[in-house]
């Protein structure tokens, strides 16, 4: 059914394929940028991925103005301010973010305060608070999961209060997303599994959330199919560039889907668990996904049932009565969880992920403060959240 009203935006140019990074100089030229700042992390540097970008820019009129390569896994206000000072001192005119969600979200955060000429990122927390076009941003994902290269969201941690602060604005959408299989070839198996399950969660939650729409559905549906066909192989055969490219494309498609239809309970639980117990986001998504789907069966069972087609294939879909499709879809996700556990020990429970049982109450309370709950089909109370956390514990 077509919603009575929805909004959809995706102006990001997608440059995908073998050696796509080599197109950076052309993209910078198109954006009128000559002195980009590179924001990345130590993992990217150690894996030799920064070199691909440096080599691409070497033979062009652009020059890298500065490199910040110490982005932490959970970026903070202090890090954003530090990078902004470096950007100003080196007279940079654009950003190239290389990494996972943290590097890309950090670049978005820095871009806000550079453009707004401020040092206080907190001023801009919330939705649609940015009025000015930001500096050019080229995003190069290296984890194939977050989708931040095509989302209008940036999440930066308030480390003092252990909460993740969301910033949403269409101005935060990068100008270009470069998907190059070389950038994910070195991702270790467990991280590959976790980030791919993050992408799977983006696609699934966006498909049954209250803000779903025909455009986001199309991206989500296609992303789920590609992920289902490639996740296990990406974990088993990490050097298979074709599989890596497929998963990275699916992650980007899932990013477009959820950037426009948002996510729900699974993400609220994951944000809270990540904020309090520092469980990696993809791990939390993988643990909570089947529980989130089950919780929404009554309100969104039909939509979840439709996902059996991309998850299980046409034969299983056709052979399953409509009433049983949603449960079958959830079974496939649980089977995928088990497969990934056997392949790379991706945690299946909160206990395995190192969450102390005495933190569950606190996580349940923090879940109630997460904005994604608004878009969950079924209402969630603190008692509901606690019940799910206990189920997911062991």
């Amino acid at each position, binding site marked *: 059914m077509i919603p009575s009203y929805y909004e959809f935006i995706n102006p990001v140019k997608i440059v995908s394929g073998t050696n796509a990074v080599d197109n950076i100089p052309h993209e910078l030229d198109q954006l009128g940028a000559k002195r980009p700042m590179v924001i990345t992390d130590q993992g990217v540097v150690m894996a030799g991925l920064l070199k691909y970008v440096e080599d691409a820019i070497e033979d062009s009129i652009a020059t890298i103005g500065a490199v910040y390569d110490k982005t932490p896994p959970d970026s903070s206000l202090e890090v954003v301010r530090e990078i902004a000072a470096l950007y100003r001192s080196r007279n940079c005119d654009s950003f190239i973010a290389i990494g996972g969600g943290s590097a890309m979200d950090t670049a978005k955060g820095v871009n806000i305060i550079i453009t707004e000429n401020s040092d206080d990122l907190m001023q801009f927390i919330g939705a649609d608070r940015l009025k000015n076009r930001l500096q050019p941003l080229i995003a190069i994902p290296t984890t194939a999961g977050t989708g931040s290269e095509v989302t209008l969201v940036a999440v930066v941690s308030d480390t003092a209060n252990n909460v993740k602060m969301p910033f949403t604005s269409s101005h935060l959408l990068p100008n270009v997303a470069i998907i190059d299989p070389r950038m994910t070839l070195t991702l270790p198996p467990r991280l590959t599994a976790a980030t791919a399950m993050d992408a799977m969660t983006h696609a699934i939650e966006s498909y049954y959330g209250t803000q779903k729409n025909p455009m986001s559905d199309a991206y989500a549906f296609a992303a789920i199919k590609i992920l289902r066909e490639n996740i296990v192989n990406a974990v088993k055969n990490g050097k298979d560039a074709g599989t890596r490219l497929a998963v990275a494309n699916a992650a980007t498609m899932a990013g477009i889907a959820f950037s426009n239809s948002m996510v729900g309970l699974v993400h609220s639980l994951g944000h809270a668990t990540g904020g309090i117990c520092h469980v990696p986001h993809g791990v939390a998504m993988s643990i909570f996904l089947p529980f989130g789907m089950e919780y929404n069966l009554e309100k969104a069972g039909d939509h979840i049932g439709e996902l059996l087609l991309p998850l299980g294939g046409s034969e299983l879909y056709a052979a399953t009565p409509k009433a049983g499709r949603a449960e079958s879809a959830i079974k496939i996700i649980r089977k995928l969880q088990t497969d990934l556990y056997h392949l790379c020990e991706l945690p299946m429970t909160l206990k395995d992920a190192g969450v102390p049982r005495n933190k569950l109450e606190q996580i349940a309370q923090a879940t*109630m403060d997460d904005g994604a709950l608004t878009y969950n089909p079924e209402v969630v109370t603190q008692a509901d959240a606690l019940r799910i956390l206990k189920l997911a514990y062991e």
Partner: protein
Amino acid sequence: MMKKTISFEKRIKKIIVKIVMFVLGKAIQSASRWDSIVRHEVARWPDNLTFALDVLPWGPRMAMKKQKGRLKYLGDGPKEVDLLISFKNIECAFLVFAGLMGTEQGAAERRTIVKGNLAVALSLIRIMNLMVVYLYPKFWSQRLVKRVPRLSLKQHALRVYIILIGIPTGI
């Protein structure tokens, strides 16, 4: 900038939204005194927090402030508030305030813009949903909220109190 002349229909809608804002503000004020769920929500808000609901670009608007653990309705209130939830236009606001669309559905359809503490905004939405349950009959409120909670006898009494005494007096 000079205000433009607006149609009769839009003016009527603005009047209706303003009236519902008044009713909602007084109902929340009263509930923050007597209702344990609302008290529990408000207890976690910072002291002296102010919030407003408004309609872009020129209103109407309602504001409230947390004072001594309760919420006080301020009418239009101060221009600067800690949390501002703005409806993009009067048509969006009318859908929600006339009870034709739930608050969360309005947010899901991006008909609102939130400036300020998102955790408080979510808490406020939960309070507004409870007010919907109190102020509308069940056959209507179940169209506006995701789940209509089963009300206790005390809550039924409180509901009558809010409608008969809370809204007219704010007590």
